């Protein structure tokens, strides 16, 4: 039994995949030269005014309904006020007391059963504009910092979970599932390296001390640049908090919420300056923007536009296709295009497991080796389905499957053409019977062995049959030989 329970809530900022910014028409393209994607509106020039991007609103709505959130009839924009050089207006346009969505949930599970399947509640998801970037100089405090405002005004959806996770593993599962969901519905590319997905974690401990439950002060961890970093930071922070509690006995409420930054290289969290924490954001409704109301029709349309979500697909792969939880997870984790590929192939093949095996083993291996996506894969879903179907019907001997797959892959052939090019043809049953007959005649000792009860002796004949006719199906050869011996 652990000495404490770790309580984790996550705040995820997702950049929505719009072409233009949230309140102006500047491009959101990543990687442009500094300060080349700005205009009077996004740099807050005197006199400029914001007008909201309808697509950002649509994408936010889709995400909110995918997260099972309620959509209030009216939402509004507020100004969150603080001074920072990457925030040119001196305020961030965000949503405070009337977010566009609230009270949702996301289910997490583990195919390795390291934790029980559970629902993580979503407190709220709201839209806001991103800030720019400070490019810090090497020697802090010596030289000036350079500010780049290209990112300023990019639409973000902030998704705030309830503190429902109890381990770094659960937090990781939540993030994986969230990212998968967002990429399935296509609202974000979720690229952490480019900052399209950012995570802050709120962590504290519940310690059981002689039957009394003690909560430690909540710490917000920032600067985590990968999901792995989130796991490590939470694990580190839990241990650190336990140690601090042992030393000081500090409880929740003894001090204001602390912010700590994750130092990935050192593997530790570090306290941030207290002055930066004592903020009074003076939120108030933005008079330059008008409220937004979503009609029931809009909400229904957003729901309808989602398509099948990862959790639904995983379920149907297990219940309808008979796949294992593990296989279903492997497939779903590859993203919607691979699922589409898989499903189309299954329709042709009529053999879900067969297609699953080829996809999870060979197709994914090839994609990984060539660092390519399924969109550019040279075997079409229909071809792969046909290929699996031919194996299932016996037209293509299982043993030749790999050769045919390779030929299809390299030369872009259909299964039939690949088989033809390899000289694989289905051997006529009577032809096969005469082949077996002649083999039995040439190997009386094997016949005797089999008659004496050593059925496995027939294996030697299979090898000989394949030498004489490479298209001979080993299982058929085996069955015919046994039948003939029995009649002898």
């Amino acid at each position, binding site marked *: 039994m652990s000495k404490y329970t770790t309580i984790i809530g996550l705040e995820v900022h997702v950049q929505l995949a719009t072409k233009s910014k949230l309140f102006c028409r500047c491009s959101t393209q990543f990687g442009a030269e500094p300060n080349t994607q700005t205009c*009077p509106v996004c*740099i*807050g*020039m*005197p*006199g*400029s*005014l*914001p*007008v*909201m991007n309808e697509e950002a609103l649509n994408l936010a709505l889709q995400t909110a309904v995918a997260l099972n959130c309620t959509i209030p009839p009216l939402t509004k924009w507020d*100004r969150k*006020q603080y*001074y920072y*050089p990457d925030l*040119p*207006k*001196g*305020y961030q346009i965000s949503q405070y007391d009337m977010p566009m969505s609230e009270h949702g949930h996301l289910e997490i599970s583990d195919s390795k059963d390291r934790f029980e399947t559970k629902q993580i509640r979503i407190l709220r998801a709201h839209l806001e504009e991103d800030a720019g970037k400070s490019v810090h100089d090497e020697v802090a*405090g010596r030289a000036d910092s350079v*500010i780049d*405002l290209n990112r300023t005004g990019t639409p973000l959806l902030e998704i705030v979970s309830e503190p429902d996770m109890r381990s770094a593993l659960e937090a990781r599962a939540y993030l994986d599932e969230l990212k998968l969901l967002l990429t399935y519905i296509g609202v974000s590319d979720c690229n952490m390296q480019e900052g399209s997905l950012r995570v802050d974690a709120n962590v504290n401990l519940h310690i059981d001390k002689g039957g009394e439950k003690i909560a430690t002060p909540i710490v917000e961890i920032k600067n985590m640049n990968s999901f792995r970093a989130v796991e490590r930071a939470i694990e580190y922070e839990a241990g650190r908090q336990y140690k601090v509690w042992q030393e000081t006995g500090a409880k929740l409420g003894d001090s204001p919420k602390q912010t700590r930054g994750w130092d990935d290289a050192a593997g530790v969290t570090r306290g941030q300056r207290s*002055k930066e924490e004592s903020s*009074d954001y*003076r939120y*108030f409704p933005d*008079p*330059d*923007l*008008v409220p937004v109301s979503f009609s029931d029709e809009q909400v229904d349309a957003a729901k309808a536009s989602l398509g099948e979500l990862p959790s639904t697909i995983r379920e149907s792969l297990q219940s309808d296709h008979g796949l294992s939880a593990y296989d279903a997870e492997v497939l779903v984790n590859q993203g919607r295009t691979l699922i589409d590929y898989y499903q189309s192939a299954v329709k042709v093949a009529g053999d879900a497991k067969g297609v699953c095996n080829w996809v999870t083993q060979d197709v994914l291996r090839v994609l990984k080796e060539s660092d390519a996506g399924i969109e550019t894969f040279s075997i079409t879903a229909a071809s792969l389905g046909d290929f699996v179907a031919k194996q299932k019907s016996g037209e293509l001997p299982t043993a030749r499957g790999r050769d045919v797959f390779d030929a299809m892959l390299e030369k872009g052939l259909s299964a039939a053409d690949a088989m033809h090019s390899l000289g694989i043809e289905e051997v006529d049953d009577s032809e096969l019977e005469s082949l077996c007959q002649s083999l039995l005649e040439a190997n009386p000792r094997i016949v005797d062995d089999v008659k004496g009860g050593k059925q496995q002796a027939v294996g030697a004949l299979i090898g000989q049959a394949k030498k004489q006719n490479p298209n001979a199906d080993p299982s058929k050869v085996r069955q015919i030989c046994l039948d003939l011996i029995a009649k002898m």
Partner: protein
Amino acid sequence: MSLIELSAAEQSRKLAAGEISSVELVQAYLDRIEKYDGSVGAFLRYDTGRAIAAAKEIDKRRAAGETLGPLAGIPVAVKDILAERGQRTSCASKMLEEFHAPYDATVIARLKATDAVLIGRTNMDEFAMGGSTENSAFQTTQNPWNLKCSPGGSSGGAAAAVAADFAPLSIGTDTGGSIRQPAGFCGIVGFKPTYGRVSRFGLVAFASSLDQVGPLARSVEDIALLYSVIAGHDPQDSTSLDKPIEFATPIDKPLEGLKIGVVAEHFAEGLDSEVESAVREAFATYESLGAKLVEVSLPHSKYAVATYYVIAPCEASSNLARYDGVHYGYRSDQAKLAAELAAERAALEEAGERGAAEDLDTPLVRMYRKSRSEAFGPEVKRRIMLGTYALSAGYYDAYYLKALQVRRLIRQDYDKAFAEVDVIAGPVTPTPPFELGSLVDDPLAMYLVDLYTVSANLTGIPALSLPCGASKSGLPIGLQLQAKPLAEETLLRAGHMYQSATDWHTRRPPL
């Protein structure tokens, strides 16, 4: 009759008929500016060469038979708060002394599209905060009727320019009376349209939910002309109204049957007797024109100034946060700041106050504070402080939220009144123009001058101020007309018919 005595509408007709040229017209006004603006101080900047060049170009295009806009070749003065591409837009603040906008405000674009000649930039209270134009960082503007008096504000330069015949038309902005009050003080007409009628895009924000651009001129007819050019939907302003602007009926239509509301609360304590009698005389004129006077009540109007001085500073404190010395505007000398901080730190450490030394501003925070403190004037600082305070933790509900609720009550009073009357008439200000310097040390007294004007901004309704009399000392007195949202035409008609029957608007100051 000299060119400058003609109304803009008449000038437009003569220009179109080829009876006069734009160069002649612009030159006539420039001559006046050269001669008298030294004593009036209406303009922060004007560029003779540029204005004449623009006039020449328009004359050339007209000669070539091109179809030109209704204001083609007519000078328009613009308050220095609207962005014009490549031009300085200072808001009469040291903060924006060197700011050159890289884009045109929608109102400027519309003026350019109608081929108006932008003759110069007028003085104002810094960031439009004030009612006397004394808060300009650069100069004071004198009232052309009496150079010892204030022209009012914040659009004091815009009003003085028209009153002194430096331009037939000017553009001002009105957040709490900043067009109507100076128009009243300068004996001209000022119009604040319904909120959302004129685009705010490119108007440097003071209080976004109250700010509105509007015209100033001698006659209501000219006001209508300029208004029809600058008004209209703008997709770049989310609060812009997408409703057609129609002048289907001519504004010179008899007032038979028009119901004019007289507000009991307007004539409470504090109203100057000269103002009261001038306004009552205007009521009598309206009755003689066939209008019917109806007494109405606006019970929450006594809270309007308090409501306004919460909401406007709150929005201002936020709108002016962008002036931080980073992206545009003034920055305090960095080397001096660093030295100052180092000295403070050394002194504290010497005194053994390590904690206080730790708490010193970072260089960045100090840069913000010094830049803002050095570049903003006292009134701007006062409003930023008030707004920051009213929005800060613990005070939001008592001040900001409360003010928003009272704002709705004030609007409901007006809705009730407008169910009974077409127009509400009353004074623009409690007194005639005051002397320069007389209120600068008493901010609250200065705020109370806005008593009759702030309600139109809080409620978003259109309001017109027009000259209706003079004090014994010869200073102008104004009449305010208010109507329900979008009822601009009713207001302009009521104003125009009054001017058809009176001659206050034809009087000119003795410069």
